[in-house]
């Protein structure tokens, strides 16, 4: 009823090994048929972008290159050219400011070192009832414009310091220069 398994396998092998003659025009006919097929619906742009995003890529990177990329990243994120440098304790020097303001209720020291914020550096009376006011602040090397604001309304330049020449705002300012050597 059944042919032996070896004969069956032999017959199949012979059949498979038989040379196959392919028509020389086959390729052209296949391509022609493909061209006639309706255009396949392309994936939407969102899907294409998503595929692009999730497709893994192999990147060859030397350790030096990785460090360079990390350094650039840190520099871009953290660096701001206009960021005021925080006072470095090593280079900052304490500077005392003194002004005589009789009858003043409050005196503030304002300048380039405190964003001209009258609330930042209130001056202290040397003694209750006296008219001498002082403030001590750390300054790093540089040139600073400043003034005293009396009772929140009156501006006073420092009579013991050089005057700021380019004073466009109608109220006097002084300058202090902090050296490094």
């Amino acid at each position, binding site marked *: 009823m059944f042919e032996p398994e070896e004969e069956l396998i032999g017959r199949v092998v012979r059949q498979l090994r038989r040379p196959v003659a392919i028509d020389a025009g086959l390729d052209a006919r296949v391509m022609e048929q493909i061209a006639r097929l309706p255009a396949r619906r392309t994936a939407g742009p969102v899907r294409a972008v998503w595929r692009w*995003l999730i497709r893994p890529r192999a990147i060859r990177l030397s350790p030096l290159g990785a460090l360079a990329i990390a350094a650039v990243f840190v520099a871009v994120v953290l660096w701001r050219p206009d960021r005021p440098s925080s006072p470095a304790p090593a280079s900052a020097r304490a500077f005392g400011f003194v002004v005589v303001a009789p009858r003043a209720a409050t005196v503030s020291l304002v300048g380039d070192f405190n964003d001209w*914020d009258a609330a930042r550096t209130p001056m202290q009376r040397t003694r209750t009832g006296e008219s001498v006011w002082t403030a001590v602040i750390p300054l790093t090397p540089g040139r600073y414009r400043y003034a005293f604001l009396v009772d929140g309304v009156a501006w006073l330049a420092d009579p013991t310091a050089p005057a700021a020449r380019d004073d*466009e705002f109608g109220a006097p300012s002084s300058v202090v220069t902090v050296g490094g050597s």
Partner: protein
Amino acid sequence: MTARWSGPAFGLVAAMLVAGSAAAQRLDPRLERLDSSARPIVAALVDSARAAALPTEPLVQRALEGATKRAPAERIVAAVRRLALDLGHARDALGPTASPTELGAAAAALRAGAPPATLTELRRIRRESLTVPLAVLTDLVGSGVPVDSAAAAVLSLAAKARDADLVEFRRAVERDIALGAPPASATATAAAVAAAAVQVNAGARQQRPGRP
């Protein structure tokens, strides 16, 4: 080293870079103190200065000074614009390696009338920071010393004098002027005294044991 990065990882890094850049460019919150007509113009001037690699902090401080002194918006804008121009001229005179504090001091010196060539010559002869020599030059002119006399005196001292020597020189000039000396001769006299002191101090420093 080989790493496999997915698209989202690329996207995340790109987004962080963009966010970092945006953070660097956003409006300085201190400028909120300016009124609404001055704020956008000052912000644009600050952005322009940043793009030109000029220090922006002096511009912000000048604007804040105007705001605190309740100056009109147009005066604040004019002051900031003028300072930005001065900073650019200062950089032209001192070169691209000048520090922000040097540029600020140089801008003030130029505004006081110092010739740009004097600034360039200072850069050439002095290895240390130019902030104090430039400030002393500006302050002398402000005290009534003719700019040529002030520039000559500072140039004669700048090569070897320390910052403290220059500040002491300025005080001596101001003291003599207050006592009635003509500004130019007070400057020449104080410069001669300061130069002699600098020579003595330099000699003492050289003879100090244990120092190179």
